[in-house]
């Protein structure tokens, strides 16, 4: 089917179209994530709740209530059973996504300021969180104890995530640096970027763990090879100066980079050619978060206070 190997003509790009708008949050939506198996979609909001939707029919399944302040980030465990949410009330909460009542199983305390970003490791026995208190904390899922507290940056940590085998953590921060940490010991292994400006708003490993996608608040997305410390591709055209807009890889039908933008659109770039292939319009405020379904050509995007919706976009399959 569609393969982008050099030599053969890639099939014509089939644009994504808007499928549905999910309107259930009372304030800005801060994050959307598909579960790893693709059956559920989680959305977190400044209205202090997390909503779980079915990704088959987008019915609202649960509303997870418990945080006392807005929720900034949400992450799925790799068996899609648990969700962890990071909130401005300085805690992280682990919820059972499959239980009928949507109960909070655990609360992780320890940060002394807003918890901004969170992620599970592939084995899902560890959770990494980054906070406005400039530290990164690694927690054990089973007991909830904090295994490491790393004084990682000089300004709020905006993004943390594990690589494919859970041995490395990449973190980005407003202090302009992007660092790589050893997950087992908490020591810093490498600093990718060290300029004080622009701030790094998002960082994430590629699916094979060899590259890191880094977003900086100068309207740029860069793909770095972390072992050589050089960036290989840069993607521009969107607007990103203020918010920590998330971006992701789309690999279900050709390789793309998908990102939100402050001009209310979702941008898609071809990963090799770096050209923008599509701009999805429809939101009425900054698109702060995007997520790609693991199997189907589907993108979900979330927008801030002026819009408060989650929009689903699909790409019709080729013949």
């Amino acid at each position, binding site marked *: 089917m569609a393969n982008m190997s050099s030599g053969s003509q890639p099939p014509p790009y089939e644009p994504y179209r808007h499928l549905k708008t999910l309107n259930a949050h009372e304030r800005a939506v801060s994050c959307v994530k598909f579960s790893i198996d693709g059956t559920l979609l989680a959305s977190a909001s400044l209205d202090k709740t997390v909503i779980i939707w079915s990704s088959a029919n987008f019915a609202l399944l649960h509303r997870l209530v418990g945080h006392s302040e807005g929720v900034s980030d949400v992450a799925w465990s790799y068996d899609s059973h648990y969700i962890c949410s990071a909130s401005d009330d300085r805690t992280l909460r682990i919820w059972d996504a499959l239980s009928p009542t949507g109960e909070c199983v655990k609360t992780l305390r320890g940060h002394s300021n807003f918890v901004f970003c969170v992620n599970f490791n592939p084995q899902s026995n560890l959770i990494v969180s980054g906070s406005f208190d400039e530290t990164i904390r690694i927690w054990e899922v*089973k007991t909830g104890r904090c295994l490491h507290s*790393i004084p990682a940056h000089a300004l709020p940590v905006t993004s943390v995530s594990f690589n494919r085998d859970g041995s490395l953590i990449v973190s980005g921060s407003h202090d302009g640096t992007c660092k790589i940490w050893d997950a087992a010991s908490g020591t810093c292994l490498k*600093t990718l970027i060290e300029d004080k400006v622009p701030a790094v708003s998002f960082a994430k490993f590629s699916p094979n763990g*060899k590259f890191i996608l880094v977003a900086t608040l100068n309207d740029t997305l860069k793909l770095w090879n972390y072992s050589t410390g050089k*960036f290989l591709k840069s993607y521009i055209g969107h607007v990103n100066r203020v918010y920590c807009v998330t971006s992701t890889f789309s690999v279900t039908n050709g390789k793309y980079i998908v990102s939100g933008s402050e001009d209310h659109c979702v941008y898609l770039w071809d*990963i090799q050619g770096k050209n923008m292939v599509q701009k999805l319009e429809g939101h009425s405020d900054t698109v702060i978060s995007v997520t790609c379904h693991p199997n189907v050509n589907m993108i979900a995007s979330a927008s801030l206070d002026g819009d408060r919706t989650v929009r689903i976009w699909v790409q019709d399959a080729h013949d």
Partner: protein
Amino acid sequence: MNAPIIDPLQGDFPEVIEEYLEHGVMKCIAFNRRGTLLAAGCSDGSCIIWDFETRGIAKELRDKDCIVAITSVCWSKYGHRILVSAADRSLTLWDVMKGEKISRTTLQQTPLQARLHPGSTPSLCLACPLSSAPMIVDLNTGSTTVLPVSDPDTGNGAAPPSRNKFSDGSLPFTPTAACFNKYGDIVYVGNSKGEILVVDYKSIQVRAMVPISGATVIKNIVFSRNGQYLLTNSNDRTIRIYENLLPLKDGLKTLDNINETVDGLDGVEKLKAVGSKCLTLFREFQDSITKVHWKAPCFSGDGEWVIGGSASKGEHKIYIWDRAGHLVKILEGPKEALIDLAWHPVHPIVVSVSLTGLIYIWAKDYTENWSAFAPDFKELEENEEYVEREDEFDLIPETEKVKESDVNEDDEVDIVTVDKDSAFSDSDMSEEELCFLPAIPSPDIPEAPEKCMESLSKLVESNNSGSPLSEEGEPNGRAMNHASSPLEEDAGGTRVKRKRKPSEKGLELQAEKVRKPLKSSGSRSSKLKNKSVVDHDTGNGLYGDDVSDDDN
């Protein structure tokens, strides 16, 4: 993996105790193939599986029928099963994922060691009882096949090779060691006369014999993971390494071939001749000064290092040799005898079990790598003379700005293909490996009021450097000065991690930082944490330790 950016200059063997694990009295340990889980057999008959990444308990295998001490634990190749042998003469096979017993067999005598066949779904195991010949046990049927422990020709006292029960009339044997080779088609037996026998267990025949000089009882016999080297531990206080000359697969066929080439010899002589083509002595290790007996010797994961524990009571010493024969390190632990030892399959970590039932984890001493914080800097081992270019210091303003990347932005990037892990080349993806047990968060108990936890945290930790920087001016400054004492005991027997030793520069910077509020990301806080190891629900309250809920 993070191989490309780890500093290759640091030696590859552990140096200090990093942590200890406590849960009941543990007797024997075994890593799973990838080293993500550690199984420990306890004196109360249960087997604990530790998640080695989080250092917490992942699962507990407990059988109400078995309440006596476990003598050995062994993982199946892909980690789905564990074989446990206990002091009540039983062998129990467990399904790890479900935590259920699959089968239980009772033998004539307590097996000191039981090893599962190294194939993918083993139903056979090799058991070495306390004072009789090793046997192959079929775990499904319970039938046992006793292996020969000496050449049948020499007569007196040879174990009857038939499937009869062990008859009391024969000579009592001292414990005999045995192990499978890498693919499990041959068993290597080390008997009490100091001979290594190469046994085909299907035909119950001794195919070759390698006598060890000194002819003393062989206490342990073990293969390296790649099957290239064989280690024996003899009563003459020497550890010997043999190189395996047989091919890893088809060993039996090669033995047949060798047999044919060795004509004109009979009986013992023939076996010895064949034996000389199976194994050659490579190295001998001993401590000629203290002449200490060795306990639980084994190879490192890649076979580059050999470790042996000192069997002297009252001391916990681990000797590390490289394969060339040099003693590189002696690790000394607290004054408790060592009863078991294991090297992590992948990382330079050694785990030892002491007589008191604690598991000590030995790891490398981390020194902070400062070049990790500055991407353009490279740490040098010593001063290098720098010769500048002729025009290096010329004032040419245009060339200052050469920060443009010279990388070809048109190259293809591959974000999806995964590199094969070379350390595990023999994993034939036919069966899925069990690398970790799903972590199920244990539910919080209804929380005690906030006040309670705060006062608890203040009592327990006077030195909480886990707290983030912006709150206090100098948590790190104080803690860092303890760089010299690697292990600090805390009251209450809670588990403590050793502190990291900062590099020279780190200590300097710390001294400066004590005065100013810490803002830079360069400082490192030591990891003094009080955690309760055992996973019981009441332990959840203790995570309040790390709270510094100072609302200033």
